[in-house]
């Protein structure tokens, strides 16, 4: 990478972090826990989006549209509806009792054990996820920049720990606004340059993308095994978003850090309005990348670090396949310029087969070969085709995204540990600022530890992708009963929560063992439904028992 890129990268990151630390340098314990009350709705709205958008969003999402289509957008259709429900029901409930964490509400409504159980589910899922939000981008950035993976994890992790420990939730809120603006600005510039580099007009690019299946956005299939459909997006996405926005402390902390209920609600609505267009724009960048690579030859396999691991004996075979790939690509490009779609399709098929053979050759000769290279599509474009200086800015975008989501999670983990466990068992700390900072430090180091250990577990990334959905259904079920079924008490909901969690684990086991086929978004619906049903059955069962005795 050029020296100018390093300067832009380091200056951008240092400016954002320095600003966050400076703005929150003399804050009290309350602001470390729940943020400063004088934040604007822009800070809240952008903060909610920044916590949600991890670095992998910007690395993976364009790659997904490049390799498949834009169907992933359906995953977000439930979010605007969830925003409205959270705004109507959850926000007033939390603000009425001046809650710092969502789980405090459960003790007031049910009992302490339900609060502790739900907070534990959150700490488990988020604790692991925080590590992965560092690990996932670090693996791509380290491969792309040629820096050691562990060093990359430690650098990202320590910067996050530094400003989160220093300024707590208040620093997270302040930095996230600037991180999100950097992210949006950087992605906008990338899109502009991409359009500039495509040798055909935008309507022609649109037509090419459409004819080659990239503009498949809505899938109305009723097959529950299809991961992203309109129905799983609306129903599963609604439940997932409702649980995430309404009960995940990393989100709740952002909008409870507002001066009043209206600012909290506007911050949420901001997210409801801009989330789908933002994700659509990121997917559109992936489609533009696809069109760009119809005219500029892409590498046959995007993860170069995997290709470099190939033994010398297969080099001649790989070179042969690459040369053949170049020839077919040239023929396809010619056919594309002439509008000969039959020839384009035939060459496209040949290219797919060559890539398959190439990957099969690597797989047979490289130990633990990673086939998935879609996360490297966008970063490869950034590193190879953007002008000097902008490469540094785009890398700052990706690292900012990693830092903003990890910081939001670490801060929420520390707040929950302090409010829901420390003060419950040990009472208010004599030196609250020090205790909160220690807890933040411990969670930050734990996240770095999980990220460093992640390569030891082959399926961890896969697990973490579904991790949210594994726990969110149960948590949401508990909160739905708390808000809407006033007749149900602590005993019924506690047992229902345990049963609900067990059922979701069982369904996931059956799914991974290929005994059933179910998109993971449905776990949220199942978990919530089981908790609500079991809680009602137990409630009426216990009532009958009381009556008969």
């Amino acid at each position, binding site marked *: 990478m050029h020296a100018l890129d390093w300067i832009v990268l380091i200056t951008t990151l240092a400016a954002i972090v320095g600003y966050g630390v400076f703005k929150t340098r003399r804050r009290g314990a309350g602001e470390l826990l729940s943020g400063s009350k*004088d*934040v*604007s*709705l*822009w800070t809240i709205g952008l903060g909610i989006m920044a916590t949600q958008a991890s670095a992998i969003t910007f690395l993976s999402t364009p790659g997904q549209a490049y390799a498949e289509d*834009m169907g992933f*957008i359906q995953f977000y*259709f439930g979010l*605007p*509806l969830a*925003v*409205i429900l959270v*705004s*109507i029901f959850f926000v007033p409930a939390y603000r009425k009792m001046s809650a710092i964490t969502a789980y405090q509400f459960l003790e007031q409504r049910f009992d302490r054990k339900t609060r502790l159980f739900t907070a534990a589910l959150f700490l488990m899922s988020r604790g692991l996820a925080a590590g992965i939000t560092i690990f996932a981008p670090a693996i791509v950035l380290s491969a792309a920049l040629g820096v050691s993976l562990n060093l990359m994890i430690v650098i990202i992790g320590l910067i996050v720990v530094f400003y989160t420990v220093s300024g707590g939730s208040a620093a997270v809120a302040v930095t996230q606004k600037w991180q999100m603006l950097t992210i949006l600005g950087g992605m906008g510039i990338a899109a502009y340059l991409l359009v500039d580099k495509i040798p055909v007009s935008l309507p022609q690019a649109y037509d090419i993308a*459409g*004819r080659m*299946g990239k*503009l*498949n*956005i*809505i899938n109305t299939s009723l097959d529950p095994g299809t991961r992203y459909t*309109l129905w799983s997006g609306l129903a599963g996405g609604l439940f997932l978003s409702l649980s995430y926005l309404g009960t995940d402390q990393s989100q709740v902390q952002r909008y409870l850090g*507002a*001066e*009043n*209920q*209206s*600012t909290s*609600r*506007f911050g949420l*609505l901001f997210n*409801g*309005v801009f989330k*789908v*267009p933002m994700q*659509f724009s990121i997917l559109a960048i992936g489609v533009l990348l696809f069109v760009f690579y119809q005219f500029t030859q892409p590498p046959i396999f995007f993860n170069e670090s995997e290709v470099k691991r190939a033994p010398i004996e297969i080099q001649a075979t790989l070179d042969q396949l690459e040369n053949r790939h170049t020839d077919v690509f040239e023929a396809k490009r010619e056919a594309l310029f002439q509008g000969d779609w039959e020839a384009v399709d035939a060459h496209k098929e040949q290219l797919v087969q060559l890539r398959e053979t190439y990957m099969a050759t690597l797989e047979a000769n490289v130990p633990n070969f990673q086939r998935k290279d879609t996360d490297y599509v966008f970063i490869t474009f950034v590193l190879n085709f953007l002008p000097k200086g902008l490469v540094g800015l785009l890398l700052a975008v990706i690292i900012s995204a990693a830092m903003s989501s990890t910081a939001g999670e670490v801060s929420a983990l520390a707040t929950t540990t302090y409010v829901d466990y420390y003060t419950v068992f040990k009472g208010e700390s004599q030196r609250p600022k020090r205790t909160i900072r220690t807890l933040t430090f411990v969670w930050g180091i734990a996240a770095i530890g999980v990220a460093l250990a992640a390569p030891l577990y082959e399926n961890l990334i896969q697990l973490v992708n579904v991790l949210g959905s594994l726990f969110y259904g149960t948590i949401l079920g508990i909160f739905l009963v708390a808000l809407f079924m006033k007749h149900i008490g602590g005993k019924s909901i506690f047992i229902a929560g345990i049963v609900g969690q067990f059922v979701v684990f069982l369904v996931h086991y059956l799914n991974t063992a290929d005994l059933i086929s179910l998109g993971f978004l449905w776990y949220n619906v199942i978990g919530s439904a089981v908790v609500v049903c079991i809680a009602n059955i137990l409630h009426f069962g216990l009532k009958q028992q009381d009556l008969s005795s």
Partner: protein
Amino acid sequence: MTIKNTSIVNWKKYYIGVVALLVAEIVAFYFITRQYV
């Protein structure tokens, strides 16, 4: 911008706006998809 007064906000109007935007997006996406299927 910090909103001071809760009572004057007509929330129903905002909620309808968010739902209408989502419906418009889904319809637009549906027609884009149908163009090439």
